[in-house]
């Protein structure tokens, strides 16, 4: 993750955007996994 770097130029902005998207995908997968696990554990 890009901790505390600037966002002045396009390249930095694009890198931040990619890192943010990666963070979002990981968190969404975790949320879906918890949702699935609730079912699987009760079947």
């Amino acid at each position, binding site marked *: 993750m*890009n901790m505390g770097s600037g*966002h002045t130029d396009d390249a930095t902005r694009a890198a931040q955007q990619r890192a943010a998207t990666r*963070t979002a995908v990981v968190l969404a997968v975790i949320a879906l996994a*918890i949702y699935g696990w609730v*079912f699987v554990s009760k079947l």
Partner: protein
Amino acid sequence: MSEAATHHEHDHHDHHPSGITRWLTTTNHKDIGSMYLIFSLIMFFIGGAMAMVIRAELFQPGLQFVDPQFFNSMTTMHALVMIFGAVMPAWTGFANWMVPLMIGAPDMALPRLNNWSFWILPFAFTLLLSTVFMPGGGPAGGWTMYPPLVLQTGAAFPFLIFAVHFMGASSIAGAINIIATVFNMRAPGMTLLKLPLFVWTWIITAFLLIASIPVLAGAVTMLLTDKFFGTAFFSAAGGGDPVMFQHIFWFFGHPEVYILILPAFGIVSAIIPTFARKPLFGYASMVYASAAIAFLSFIVWAHHMFTVGMPLAGELFFMYTTVLIAVPTGVKVFNWVATMWQSSMTFETPMLFAIAFVVLFTIGGFSGLMLGVTPVDFQYHDTYFVVAHFHYVLVTGAVFALMAGTYFWLPKWTGHMYDEGLGKLHFWISTISVNVLFFPQHFLGLAGMPRRIPDYSVQFADFNMVSSIGGFVFGLSQLLFVVVVVKCVKGGVKATDQVWEGAHGLEWTLPSPPPYHSFNTPPDPATIEGGMR
């Protein structure tokens, strides 16, 4: 001010759609924040109207105005609307407005997702509120949706389940966006331990949302399949277990309580140092206490169901973990008091609401401790004592912090000072009436009045009448809040950039109101003072 001038210049060249298209398609964090706040205010009044129906019916013993089914529907919908429609979206609105400004970011990390998160909500609440007009009425089995009672809901049932799913999807998307923003978009020099407490409490809230909302979604999906697809997750007749639903629900439900209150801790931690003109006492301990509260919130859920029956070891475990939450919460209360100690306080409206929060939330915390003690809970369970407890925590806690935060940042958002006289009038009427409303409910509960009933024995009549009078005054006094906000949006004395003499933080370095696009160039690291401010 040269930086501010640069921002104005940027703003001058910004083009955005006007009219309704602007609001439908916007990806701007300030626009989306405003929409969240307006939506939550509308929901606050819809949920409040339902509360007025409840208090009107309970004004006297006997059935006066509504039939019991409709009454039960009002208690259920009031809770769902206030929790998922008023308080949670309000916090997301505050986060949208303030998190990018506080960390020096140009916007939220995922602006399109942000737009989507908001626009799911009107659809979710149209689904939910439409059930009131359906045959059989709205859901009436309580907001906890316990089976088998909830499975008796009529045409409203699938609407309720899908509305809860939509609300959950909106919350998770919002939480993901906030974490992605804070972890990836901070300005140079804004290290984690320099983040304002409001940002910290929101990160922790966002993790709680991501961990707990899918559990609720799983539970209500299972209700849906039990009702329509022949499964028996919670049906004893089919080999399932209805008590299992309660465990799953409260595994979501208790973290949800902290989802509603942690951002309030963040706002109060911003306001008290500003009007005490002192740095926040014990900044790091505040961060660790918030994290400790979040962790503990996942191992206390069964204190909501002591009376359902569980092994003694289970009851002891959940009692001890529940009481343990008092430690990090006490750290916070002592830190706020220590910040005020020997300071140069002034008492503008945000500070009045923040001080009322500290006092009244602590009362709600103490009654929570009483409820957390297992043998005592056997007497209090499902009585008005519980109603009094959670309204002290959620109304004089969460809602008072929302009021405090609105008065605190309204001049920054609008560029005008609000009417201080009307603000103080709103504070005093609200604070007196809310105590008239909820304090007598402690006595009703201790005397044995059950919750969720439209009629009651005559010995409860006096306190119910007092409580209803408090409720009507509190409800009406919130119209004053709308007057103050509308008046401030329309005009007033021009607000300075810093607004409050003791205000510190990046958001106060921007003009009031901030330009449509802010921090396109990152702020000077020298202006970042650190979160203890």
